[in-house]
């Protein structure tokens, strides 16, 4: 079983975490006109990288969202930081 580091609670079992989304993917401004292409890209198209990835996760027990930089091939977790801080 893998363990991830919650920036607030420390090293915890993988089952306590959920993937929430890709970092830096912003919801189009729905008050303005949004094209079908932009909207479907937002909903369905991610970068799905092989290697380094930058994502938002949530730690269920503390309900904090945070940023996780990890490698999708080696499963190595490179960094986890609170959303307010920039990764190094």
């Amino acid at each position, binding site marked *: 079983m893998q363990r991830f580091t919650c920036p607030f609670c420390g090293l915890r079992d993988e089952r306590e975490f*959920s993937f929430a989304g890709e970092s830096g993917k912003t919801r189009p401004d729905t008050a303005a006109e949004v094209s079908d292409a932009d909207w479907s890209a937002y*909903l369905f*198209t991610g970068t*799905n990288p*092989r290697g380094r990835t930058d994502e938002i996760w949530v730690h269920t027990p503390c309900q904090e969202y945070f940023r996780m930089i990890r490698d999708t091939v080696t499963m190595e977790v490179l960094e986890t930081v609170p959303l307010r801080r920039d990764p190094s």
Partner: protein
Amino acid sequence: MKRYSAFAIAREGFRAHKGWDRAWTAPEPRKNYDVIIVGAGGHGLATAYYLGRNFGITNVAILEKGWLGGGNTGRNTTIIRSNYLQDPSAAIYEKARSLYETLSQDLNYNVMFSPRGLIMLAQTHHEVRGYQRTAHANKLQGVDTEWISPTRVKELCPIIELKGPRYPVLGGLYQERGGTARHDAVAWGYARACSAMGMDIIQNCEVTGIRTEAGRVRGVSTTKGEIDCQKLGIVVAGHSGVLAQMAGFRLPIESVALQALVSEPIKPCMDVVVMANTVHGYMSQSDKGEMVIGGGADGFNNYTQRGSFHHIEETVRSLIETFPMVSRLKMLRQWGGIVDMTGDRSPILSKTPVDNIFINCGWGTGGFKAIPGSGWGFAELMATGESALCEAFSLDRFRAGRFIDESVAAGVAH
């Protein structure tokens, strides 16, 4: 190609089996092909085969970074069924299932298709309604399925526990001609037939780049050099996003590890395939006697071909409720494959933003059953630019909002 037959076995028996040919050749790539297929999994090989058989296109190379059939095609639990709800899915999966019926004869290669029957258990009232609806839809689509009672489920599969404390068996959707086939043999059979038509299957040849010119494909860069082509088919399952990026577009695909496991071999105890979608488990017995069990998919993207261990625990824990005898079994092996998941969990067989690049992906957790039908339709799409089987599965459906809603039929990995 020398034909395989009982006579051939007898003949070879008299000369110490020295006269067999290699099943396929191992050529070096040429400079130029009419069609290049990337990925020698079942879907890539079947596409090449039907390009040759149905359209006479044989100047074809199939490039594979590892060994043929070493991706998901060689890692799946081999369930074949076509009991889907929506018309486009029923059409392509039933085309595939019906081609499986005669595939061994067509390819002159025993793919061990075993239409032993398949039950999808209904264990909640929601599922009862869902599967009854599917049974009605299948009647209209000409797919042979029926709704059966718990008593009939028990008759077909005596090792099942109907009164499970949390999820009693309330009935099932039964497809009598569903079943399994030998996954490796499907890849090998198609590969042998492709090679016999003069196609080049090039293993240990990874595509590392895609060359385009004025919005049109020119060729690919590989670990065995540059190769040109008129048309390119990308059929690489979990690596579709990586290949799309080389060609400069993105796909609505997420890659995750999906796992399976097998038990020690035991005496025959189950001659149907049973899927229990509510508890996320399914099981069949292999010809060797192992219980073949499908596990869950990881909840986040990765390319590890391994999977998270707790999914195995969860699968086995929930299966024990429906099949109490599983608790006495030792599990032998576990493995994973990288599956390609789309937003609506249906595949993509489509043209792409680059002219003459076609993509066949998104089969996710359930594409083994589709191999012959997918190859049939995708070959037609690549050869003629159009295919009725593929039309509803175009990339454009995500923009247009025309999703193929199969959530009832495909709630679990299989």
